[in-house]
């Protein structure tokens, strides 16, 4: 692979009809690049959960896929409310999603832990009132 592949998606807030499309593009792109199905599957989970966080919590935002020689980075950036207690948010089962969203099967409180489990590197920068930046890196074996 020569130049890194870079894709950027705008994710709209609370648009549940379009939700998941960016993640599907991410997976398709990685498959087209010929990456292994294990890598594609892990990246799909990361991209989906990151996208849903933008839809549900972040007030929308941007998701970037960057594919380099030895790694994939999925970066989600929003200008939402920020995460007040990150260690709580990382706990499986903890969610701040409202009831109507939970009734659709979202807000299981598993998003961030699903992302972390499928990442080789995982980082979140968050500031109250400013927004959140999530970076997930998956190594290409």
């Amino acid at each position: 692979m020569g130049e890194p592949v870079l894709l950027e998606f705008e994710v709209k807030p609370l648009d549940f009809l379009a939700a998941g499309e960016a993640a599907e593009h991410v997976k398709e792109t990685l498959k087209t690049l010929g990456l292994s199905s294990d890598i594609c599957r892990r990246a799909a989970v990361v991209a989906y959960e990151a996208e849903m966080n933008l839809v549900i919590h972040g007030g929308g935002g941007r998701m970037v896929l960057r594919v380099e020689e030895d790694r994939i980075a999925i970066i989600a950036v929003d200008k939402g409310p920020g995460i007040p207690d990150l260690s709580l948010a990382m706990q499986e089962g903890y969610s701040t999603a409202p009831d109507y969203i939970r009734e659709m099967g979202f807000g299981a409180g598993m998003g961030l832990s699903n992302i972390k489990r499928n990442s080789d590197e995982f980082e979140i920068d968050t500031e109250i009132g400013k927004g959140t930046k999530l970076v997930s890196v998956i190594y290409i074996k």
Partner: protein
Amino acid sequence: MRISEVFRSLDLEIHVEGDLGKALSGGVVGDLLSFVMKVAGEGSVWITVQNHVNVAAVAVLKEIPFVLLASGRVPSPELVDRCRQEGITLATSALDAYPLCGKLYELGLKD
């Protein structure tokens, strides 16, 4: 077991016919989308009562070829459209998830 065998053995209402010759690797049951993202295996049948369009996104990402709605749930028109676009088989059973899973288990789908 192929999807077509499930249709032959159970009383299902079919909404979208994908590749009925596709072999199922196992099953997953759940209504929390992130839970299914976590545990579903590729090639599974997914039993759920969620009937909205985001079910299709999860199915595509997890390579789930067959979504089976339990308890007589009617899919939203958007879900039907997306399943059609993506070639995902979509059907409804009048049974609740527990007896429905039991039937699938009896048919030999045990993973």
